[in-house]
């Protein structure tokens, strides 16, 4: 049986390769966004699609294409801004929200920001309401400049009528990358912070938010007087701006034009995965990561460290982390199959080790006799084989959603009602980490 499993592994990997040649890449395993030093954004109204089949009006930040000068569509969440430590950042924001929507702005918790142009607001300077004739031409646009002094994961939000603006979608992620390889580090590797112990192989964004569709209806119908956040009752929940199962689709799919970011973490066994976790909304969500504990190495863009230069020595391990509104955390997660006690590849003891294979389990047999195919009901993500990268016979009608024979670990909110999209199950705050066979290409 072990031998069959292995032969099938090789075959399925070849099949995946052929599939990729035809259809391009599978869901990307990376954070996408816009990098640089200067960002030109516009706040606009648009519509998103939720997985219950509804569409909801949003206000989002849109990117102005630097070549054409034209703004794209608003997006939920706003563009993930990727910048470099110690390199000054300039962000201009123009207000093109509909009449009566009011001013708009951006605040960057954790950074000392200088704001210019626009008009004075409560938290920062704001881009003036679009339909008002500006007294000065610069009032419709506001400029924010700051120099990020520390690498890490941050967020930005609207600082204007923040209860409504954040609800409507005016927020996004800000990632500050280290200026240089940390002391003792390998220039070919990736580090989240200025310490070698923050090395990672792959990174994923986990920006969580929620919506009360009633408020969006009130905005759509211009019932400004009815909007009352003391009655707030969210029924839609999002990771990176999408509900399950839309999170599993690729980044930038054409049918989700205002929700460009997916949440489909994938990895090979033994890799270190960095989860950039952001509480962008106003509610607390207990996100639960099946498969292994994670280590929280940083909060609010600051390493959990007992002193300068000692690295994340105060990191804490857990399986569930709450999203705190406005807070960010960096989680490092890994998986080798160590605790299983059997060989995930179905090796014979004399077979060579796979990359990062947990050696003490090498050649250990699968501990149970699998029941016949028709004696059980297979879940949609079962490949037909218990072995990583394996395949097996699936019953008629099975979706075959796991063509590469990966291991699916559900990463979800443990407030179980949040596993719905406006009362339709399954939806909401669910995604899956897929541990793929080392031969399955991810990027």
């Amino acid at each position: 049986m072990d031998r069959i499993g292995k032969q099938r592994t090789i075959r399925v990997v070849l099949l995946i390769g052929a599939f990729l040649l035809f259809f391009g890449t599978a869901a990307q395993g990376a954070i996408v966004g816009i990098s640089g030093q200067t960002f030109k954004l516009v706040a606009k109204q648009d519509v998103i699609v939720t997985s219950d089949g509804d569409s909801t009006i949003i206000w989002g930040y849109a990117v102005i294409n630097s070549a054409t000068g034209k703004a794209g569509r608003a997006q939920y969440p706003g563009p993930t801004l990727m910048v470099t430590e110690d390199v000054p950042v300039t962000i201009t924001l123009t207000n093109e929200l509909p009449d009566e929507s009011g001013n708009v702005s951006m605040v960057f918790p954790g950074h000392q920001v200088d704001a210019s142009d626009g008009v004075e607001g409560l938290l920062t300077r704001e881009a003036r309401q679009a339909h008002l004739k500006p007294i000065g031409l610069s009032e419709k646009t506001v400029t924010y400049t700051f120099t990020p002094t520390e690498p890490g994961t941050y967020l930005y939000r609207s600082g204007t009528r923040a209860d409504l603006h954040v609800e409507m979608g005016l927020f996004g992620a800000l990632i500050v990358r280290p200026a240089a390889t940390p002391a003792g580090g390998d220039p070919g590797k990736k580090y989240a912070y200025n310490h070698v112990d923050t090395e990672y192989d792959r990174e994923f964004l986990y920006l969580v938010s929620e919506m009360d569709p009633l408020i969006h209806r009130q905005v759509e119908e211009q019932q400004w007087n009815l909007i009352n956040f003391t009655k707030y009752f969210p029924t839609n929940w999002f990771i990176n701006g999408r509900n399950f199962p839309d999170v599993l689709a690729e980044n930038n799919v054409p049918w989700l034009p205002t929700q460009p970011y997916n949440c489909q973490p994938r990895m090979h066994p033994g890799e270190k995965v960095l989860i950039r976790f952001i509480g962008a909304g106003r509610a607390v969500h207990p996100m639960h990561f099946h498969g292994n504990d994670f280590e929280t190495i940083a909060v609010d863009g600051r390493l959990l460290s007992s002193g300068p230069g000692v690295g994340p020595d105060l990191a804490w391990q857990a399986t569930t982390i709450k999203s705190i509104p406005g807070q960010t955390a960096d989680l490092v997660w890994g998986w080798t199959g160590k605790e299983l006690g059997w060989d995930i590849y179905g090796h014979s003891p004399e077979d060579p080790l796979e990359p990062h294979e947990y050696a003490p389990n090498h050649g250990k047999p699968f501990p149970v006799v699998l029941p016949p195919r028709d004696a059980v009901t297979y879940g949609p993500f079962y490949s037909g084989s218990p072995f990583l990268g394996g395949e097996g016979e699936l019953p008629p009608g099975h979706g075959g959603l796991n063509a590469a024979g990966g291991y699916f670990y559900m990463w979800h909110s443990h407030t179980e009602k949040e596993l719905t999209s406006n009362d339709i199950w399954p939806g909401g705050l669910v995604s899956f980490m897929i541990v793929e066979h080392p031969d399955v290409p991810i990027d």
Partner: protein
Amino acid sequence: MFSKKVIIFQGLFLFLCLLTVMVGKAVAAEYWLYVNKANMTMADGSKVPVWAFGLDKDNNFTTTEGQATVPGPTLRVGPEDTALIIHLKNNLSEAVSLNILGQGLTNNSGPVWTNFPDDTQTWSGARPAGNYTARVRSFSHETQPGEIGEYRWESFRPGTYLLQSGTNPAKQVQMGMFLPVVKNVSQGSAYAEVPYDSELVVVFHEFDPVIQNAIAAGVYGAVPGAIIGSSVLYEPKYFLMNGMSYPSKGLLHINGEGPLFQGERLLIRFLNAGLETHAPQLLGLYMTLWSEDGNRFQYPKQVYGFELAPGKTADAIVVSPKNPPWHYPFYDAKLNLSNNGVYPGGMFSYIRSSVPKHLSTGTVQ
């Protein structure tokens, strides 16, 4: 042989020494606290009924000079004080008691039980034998309406603590019966190696006027004619920091001696006396989080915000980034930014480098 004069002198000297030792070792901080029925004006002008603590400044209760506020006045226990004694005058029409989260009440004769729902008979200590319907009304001995009670904490730990009503807390705490109690480990230091130059005590809480009006009118709970049975449908309309919300004047000033210059340290004592979790956030500054619930961390955390659950306290140090004047927005990142649903309002203010001339807590009429 000593002369009689010398002996008298020596005796007098010893007596003076003993007296000096006794005076130098002040043992207790002692306060005369009362609780009143009152109304409090919200930022939008509406009035909400509260039960508010005030300090009787001349310590006799024959007159009540102090002003009742929500939250009540900050009680300070000196670094050299081992005990806190509170004399409580109850000006409400129902029994009350006091409870400090994280501090052990010394004169505690156990909980007070009542014959639910009639509430006409009480027992103290263990559950009345054979009575399986009695319910606990108070965590410790009660002070009846019009009477004066005494509450003693004889080994008071340093830190930031929340005093709340210990009687039907789901009802009395949300009426405003809470106040901060603070004790420094030494003069000018909140905890070991946590010195500060200025201090800001900020209590987060909320008001639900519907419930509070029902309580004030006596139509709340398991009583005849009740219109609200409990706080299960709690839906706060006012989100307050020290009894105030934006744009109230005097919201959140720094209780220091003077302006904060570059490099000087501001201690912020955070308390959540409400029923909901909040997420205090500073915009543009980091703070060093040093403690929770009066327990100093071995290693502090650098954050710009954090979760503050009901009943919790936390202490953080903010280092003044420059010379005055400066101000930084300070608000609830859960975005409770309205007064009865109207933006802007709620838990939003600024941390300022200077000392405003206003009261620090919401006052009542």
